[in-house]
């Protein structure tokens, strides 16, 4: 406990010291500002859009479009693949100021332009085509993906705007996939100080309005969001503003809550956790869900995001704060064992990026930079390098390996707050404003590179690294169906199973068990017709006078 007398003096000093390390100028939160309506029709509509539209819960075939109006009206989204011909529409006739429309039946990986309005008017549109959704690719698709990552952004001041503008410049001038931002990943604390609706208007909607109209935003809960949002009831501004999948609508496992959820995008599986309100205990509901979810994915990459950093010596300390320690000690052993590749955190207002790690769950001073094969905590011969392709080389993760992940604490998209910034597990620690961009692309050799860049508010890239995975999408060696066992042959053309027995061997029984282990067929013949069995996996149990054995078969 801090003694009051010491505390008061310390408090006075701390204000001075914080002022030295933080350039933040907290804004005077103004009342709700009307969204800047660039490209609106010339005849101003009678209903004003105050917020949005913005995109939520994107899947290969659906997306949620949300917006707010000043007066209650119907909700209409008109959309189509041609800018000049928005021939489809989705209408909700109930009048409201908080509009939420789900577009379904869309084609994967397809660009749909849209506008919003009511039954009589278009209330917001972009005649230049800057309001659109590109649906997610089908899960497992190997293609270029770009995600913009923003931690602790919500200051609503020029720091935040400069960080935003640096990314806008970057993506506008990107040599490949120019202007493509597949998603925005918010790491929490999206609106200071308390995540109120008004603060969200200022620090989120007013700042990122242009990008929110064409890129799906995902988020985890930060502690400042948590001051006004209550995970226990899923109520408050955070949960009202965002719509996240609770029933595995976007892939993954149904969590039943927006506090933690997962989704697939291309061949990446994203796991979003609530490190603030929800129990972080091993065996708790979130832990059990995460374990099942991560052990259920077949995606090539696994990325997780939650607010409280596993490793930091910035404005927070992962050696002393309970949430940070619990996430590291309880969740990371399980997630690393199941192949997580990238961990994105915020909370500390700095940029700290680790080496290529595995198995470090203790305090900073227990970190051992040696390879895991030598009892250390880094993976591969260059795991303790900088991960740069033009320096120590990319971190390598072969198709046969689960170990190796990079941890990033990137909470400086709105302010910096200093700190010792000397965590031993970190390759780079910077007290600089910025955001991150993650890009996944082919390496030209059958694998993929996952590259993350830390982009300063001043447009420079102060850090980057690459994780290279070989043999992406390599399938298991499945036995040829015709050769399912020593004495068993399956001829799929004529739906026959044939048994070869030794000269003195006499067949007693053949049993077929389906994919839940239920006995579905018996036979005493050496040639068995399986044409009537539904497609799927079966175990065949063969019993002869000499031996009993089982084989498996997939009937196609």
């Amino acid at each position, binding site marked *: 406990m801090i003694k009051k007398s010491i505390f008061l003096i310390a408090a006075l000093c701390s204000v001075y010291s914080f002022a030295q390390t933080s350039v933040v100028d907290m804004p005077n939160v103004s009342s709700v500002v009307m969204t800047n309506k660039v490209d609106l029709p010339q005849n101003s509509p009678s209903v004003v859009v105050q917020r949005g539209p913005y995109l939520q819960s994107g899947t290969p075939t659906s997306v949620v479009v949300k917006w707010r109006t000043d007066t209650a009206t119907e909700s209409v989204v008109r959309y189509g693949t041609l800018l000049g011909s928005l021939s489809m529409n989705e209408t909700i006739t109930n009048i409201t100021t908080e509009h939420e429309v789900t577009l379904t039946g869309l084609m994967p990986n397809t660009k749909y332009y849209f506008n919003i309005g009511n039954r009589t008017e278009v209330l917001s549109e972009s005649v230049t085509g800057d309001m659109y959704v590109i649906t997610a690719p089908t899960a497992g698709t190997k293609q270029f993906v770009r995600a913009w990552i923003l931690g602790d952004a919500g200051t609503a001041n020029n720091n935040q705007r400069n960080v935003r503008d640096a990314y806008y410049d970057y993506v506008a001038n990107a040599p490949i996939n120019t202007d493509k931002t597949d998603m925005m990943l918010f790491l929490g604390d999206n609106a200071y100080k308390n995540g109120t609706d008004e603060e969200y208007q200022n620090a989120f909607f007013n700042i990122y309005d242009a990008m929110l109209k064409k890129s799906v935003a995902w988020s985890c809960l930060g502690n400042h969001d948590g001051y006004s949002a209550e995970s226990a009831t899923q109520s408050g501004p955070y949960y009202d503003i965002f719509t996240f999948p609770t029933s595995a609508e976007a892939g993954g496992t149904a969590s*039943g809550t927006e506090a933690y959820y997962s989704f697939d995008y291309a061949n990446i599986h994203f796991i979003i956790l609530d490190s603030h309100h929800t129990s972080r205990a091993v065996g708790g*509901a979130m832990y059990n869900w995460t374990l099942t979810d991560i052990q259920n994915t077949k995606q090539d990459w696994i990325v997780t995001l939650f607010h409280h950093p596993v490793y930091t010596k910035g404005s927070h300390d992962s050696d002393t704060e309970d949430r940070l320690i619990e996430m590291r000690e309880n969740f990371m052993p399980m997630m690393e064992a199941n192949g997580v590749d990238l961990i994105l955190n915020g909370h500390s207002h700095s940029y700290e990026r680790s080496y290529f790690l595995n198995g470090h769950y203790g305090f900073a001073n227990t970190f051992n930079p040696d390879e895991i094969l030598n009892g250390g905590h880094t993976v591969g011969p260059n795991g303790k390098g900088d991960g740069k392709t033009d320096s120590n080389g990319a971190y390598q993760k072969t*198709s046969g390996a689960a170990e190796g992940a990079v941890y990033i604490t990137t909470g400086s998209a709105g302010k910096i707050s200093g700190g010792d910034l000397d965590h031993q597990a970190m390759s780079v620690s910077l007290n600089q404003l910025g955001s991150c961009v993650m890009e996944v692309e082919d390496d030209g050799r059958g694998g993929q590179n996952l590259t993350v860049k830390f982009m300063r508010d001043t447009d420079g890239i102060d850090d980057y690294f690459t994780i290279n995975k070989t043999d992406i999408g390599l399938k*298991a060696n499945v036995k040829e169906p015709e050769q399912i066992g020593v004495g068993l042959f399956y001829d799929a053309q004529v739906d026959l199973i044939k048994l070869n027995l030794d000269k003195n061997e006499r067949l007693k029984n053949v049993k077929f068990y389906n994919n839940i282990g239920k006995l579905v067929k018996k036979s005493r013949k050496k040639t068995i017709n399986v044409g009537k069995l539904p497609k799927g996996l079966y175990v065949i149990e063969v019993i002869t006078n000499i031996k009993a054995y089982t084989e498996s078969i997939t009937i196609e």
Partner: protein
Amino acid sequence: MAFFFLNVQLFAHGDLSMRIAEKTIEISEEPNNFKLYYERGLLYQQHNEYSDALEDYRKSQALGNTEKAVHYRIAEVYCLTEDYNEALKSIGFYLELDNIDVKAKKLEAQILFQLQSYKKSLEAYRYVIHTMVDTRPEDILEYCDIILAENNKNYKGALEVIQSGLEQLGSHTLSLQLKKLDYLKDSGQTEKALEQYNYFILQYNRKEFWYYKKAKYLAEINKPHEAFISLKLATVAIGQLQPKFKNMSPVLKLIEQIKSLKSSINNQKS
């Protein structure tokens, strides 16, 4: 400089520490403002400094704060320090002012649970579960815990609540489906438990863990042959995995567990 170092050590929680410091300055300027003490109390509470939080809440009340919220916060702090009798008094004061507040009723139920007043806890939580709008899986699970604490044979009641939760939150909500399995097993409903394992096998992409868990259960209920078939399916499912999954430590561990269970079943047979 030395003092600054001490200061950093004391204020390990970064932004929260800064806000406490700011609030302390405000209090020094307005020492009789009960709102400020309440606000600093909240910050102390978030900073896990419970005695300071309590002191500020009490001071806020002494200066004239009659808001119900302060009773709630005091009850919370007493819960966090495991002084449940005092917590019950405080939440009682709150509920005297507002007896339909769901959040307060929930806290009351939790306190009563800790005090092993299960009937009263159940009554309070029943109100919560029937009144709250945005239920989450954890609420359903907590309610079930109380039901079984009140009557450790009332699996019927607990399963009904789980079913209702599945209807409300989504039929595949994992934590509820897992709890359903636990209750079916614990209540000896073997056939339904096996159906529940089959649900997981059919529902999930990767089935190897579920096949093994089912096999283990089948062995426990003395169905070795069925267990053996399920182990075979687990082995096949592992064989169908991509190489990177096969080499993950949970899968390598699973392979060992399969071998061990197979061996155990064979030993039972012989």
